């Protein structure tokens, strides 16, 4: 086993721990912080199932963004749908036998990478071309896009230009899952791809990527518009009731 393999085995276990632990901690933090007042952006659904529908439209179709700005919507949606397909396709490296749906998605997943990178490029272009967006962009906003594009392009290089030893790679990936470790092919694009993915996993819980779990906790989107019918009290607010009255 080469030192490269050992390093990447360690890196991926570490990255997975940080990602899962970090995001779990954030979700714990969001869920334990009360929303003391009913603040859905109205018109809002008046039932729980209505809220589930609203959230689904928001997460799947980016409803609010669609209302807001068609360019950001097109690029953002292309990127996210592309990423979803690509990620789903990557499940094949972690399972044997491969599920039928994963098999089915394989060709779409390959070309979805184009949608992903085009979307990212469009979003990045806005950071230079639109003065308002240029004003609010921080170095980390640029680097995040650079990172995602680098991940996408290095992956596409292996898919379309310089294939890596896919059998060995799958052995390596499966090995991580079942703790039966195998050597990692020494291939420039692969090494770059995996290192950047690990980096992305590590920064996920401390970056703006938290918008992914965050949206589900956004009170303006996940609250039911029923304040006249239900008394909504946060624990700390309920304490005021007891003390003063």
């Amino acid at each position, binding site marked *: 086993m080469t030192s490269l393999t050992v390093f990447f085995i360690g890196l991926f276990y570490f990255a997975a721990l940080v990602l899962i632990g970090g995001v779990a901690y954030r979700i714990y*933090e*969001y869920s334990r*912080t*009360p*929303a*003391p*007042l*009913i*603040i859905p*952006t*109205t*018109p*809002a*659904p*008046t039932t729980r199932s209505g809220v589930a529908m609203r959230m689904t439209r*928001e997460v799947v179709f*980016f409803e*609010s*963004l669609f*209302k*807001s*700005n068609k360019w*950001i919507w097109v690029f*953002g949606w292309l990127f996210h749908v592309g990423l979803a397909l690509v990620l789903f396709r990557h499940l094949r490296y972690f399972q044997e036998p491969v599920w039928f749906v994963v098999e089915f998605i394989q060709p779409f997943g390959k070309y979805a990478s184009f949608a992903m990178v085009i979307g990212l490029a469009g979003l990045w272009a806005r950071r230079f071309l639109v*003065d*308002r*967006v240029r*004003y*609010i*962009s*921080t*170095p*980390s*906003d640029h*680097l995040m896009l650079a990172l995602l594009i680098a991940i996408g392009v290095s992956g596409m290089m292996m898919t379309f230009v310089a294939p890596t030893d896919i059998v060995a790679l799958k052995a390596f990936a499966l090995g991580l899952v079942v703790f039966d470790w195998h050597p990692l092919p020494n291939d420039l694009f692969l090494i770059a791809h995996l290192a950047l993915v690990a980096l992305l996993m590590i*920064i996920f819980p*401390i*970056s*703006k990527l*938290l*918008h992914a779990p*965050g*949206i589900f*906790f*956004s*009170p*303006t*989107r996940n609250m039911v*518009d029923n*304040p*006249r*019918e*239900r*008394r*909504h009290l946060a624990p*700390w*607010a309920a304490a*005021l*009731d007891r003390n003063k*009255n």
Partner: protein
Amino acid sequence: MAGPEFEVPALSDYTVVPKIKEGATAHLKTFPAAEPTQTYLGYPYELGEDWKERAIDRMGQILDKFRSVRVFMDACVHCGACTDKCHYFLGTADPNNMPVARQDLMRKVYRRYFTLPGKIAPWLVGAEDLTEDTLNQWHNYYHQCSECRRCSVYCPYGIDTAEITMAGREILNYVGIGQKYSSEILNKVQKIGNNLGLPGPALEDTLEGLEEDILDDTGVAVKIPLDVKGAEILLVTPSADFFSEPHVDSLIGYAKVFHAAGVSWTLSTHASEAGNFGLFNGNYETMRNVAMRIRDAAIELGVKRIIVGECGHAWRVAYAYWNTLTGIGWGGADEFSKQLQDQLDMRYPQPMHICEYTWDLIEKGALKFDKSQNDHRVITYHDSCNVARASRMGDEPGGQFTIPRNIIKAVANHFHDMPEGTIGEATFCCGGGGGMLTDDLIEARVKGALPRMNAYNSVVQKDKVNFLALICAICKAQFTKVLPYYGFDRGSVGGVHQLVSSAIKLD
């Protein structure tokens, strides 16, 4: 009126997104609050030695108490969707008036003191130390936000800048930088009973005068009762309704509707104000204290129903928060809530908006109108932000848009809506909401009104509209002041119940 010391934006038919102009409104500073009013509210009135620790400490408490602020600080991806949605940005071009930039004034401090990347690599993620300059920026730009929530409609994560502005103002207050206007109002409402500081006897006098006016006008003895125990309905309305023009015409409208319905109703001296500036400052306890006056008045007078007059933010607090803050509403199983629920009439939503009440009577055929009395008016309707995006009327989502328009169409013949994208949930703020209705912010108010004025202008040109109807005391006062800057007649603004008042037939 003295000429403005700033350039009033030119009117057009629609609002163009401006190129950013850094620092365009950096000079706009609302007057700071003085010692007596701040002390009464439990705040210091100047920065102490330990202001920085206090500010960070308060931010931490807010992050632990309000999920909105915690999630919103993390979730923003700087996508830019909100950047062209704020009326203050559209009117001033100051980039700090873009919702995301306004949030970032706080987010940069949050990142520096509460996140790992901000602690180790602040330059990378736009994190910055909290300095007096930061506080100054907050004081500027958290008072150039009317908390109208337009940005929250368009944010893919529903980030509501109003929540950040409220948190920012609370931290400012907590370290000793208050706003004179809001601070004084929060004193008056708690000490005297209303935002205008109108004492009981003066109120009684005013109402008697109004009764005489109505009698002279219509020949009908319409009463405006005050502090009547055992009345069925308690009407809680903004105090501007008692003496400001055009507000008072809506009060007369409510009185005529109650008269025509033949119900007993009353106003309360103790609760002679529907407005609640506690909302604007983001202090839950203050907002609760102010709201509690309504509960106390309702219990003292023994009323069965509580109805709220034409006021945008008051309706938000009443509709969305009263049940939480004061138990005015249904569903509470605790003693505190039940005490009031046992008294209130369970056949009705509590509280109810005056428009819901009037529309209900219209649907039942209980009110008779002579629509031709409004024929000299070509009417459009301005959706006030807190009604549109933070509350509801009726049973269906969106009732807050249809019910007031239905009333207008029932009492008048000529109605035209302003263009799509400027009404309904996309409505543009009047420019004076959220604690900004003060002369020290007149430049922001005039420029912030631009998108609404452009939309109004388009129906003035196209449909010969001459009346801007609405249901908010702050909007009424703001437009009365701002319309002339844009060349419109200040008398062309008025309440929906002013229209009702003109057309209603009394026996």
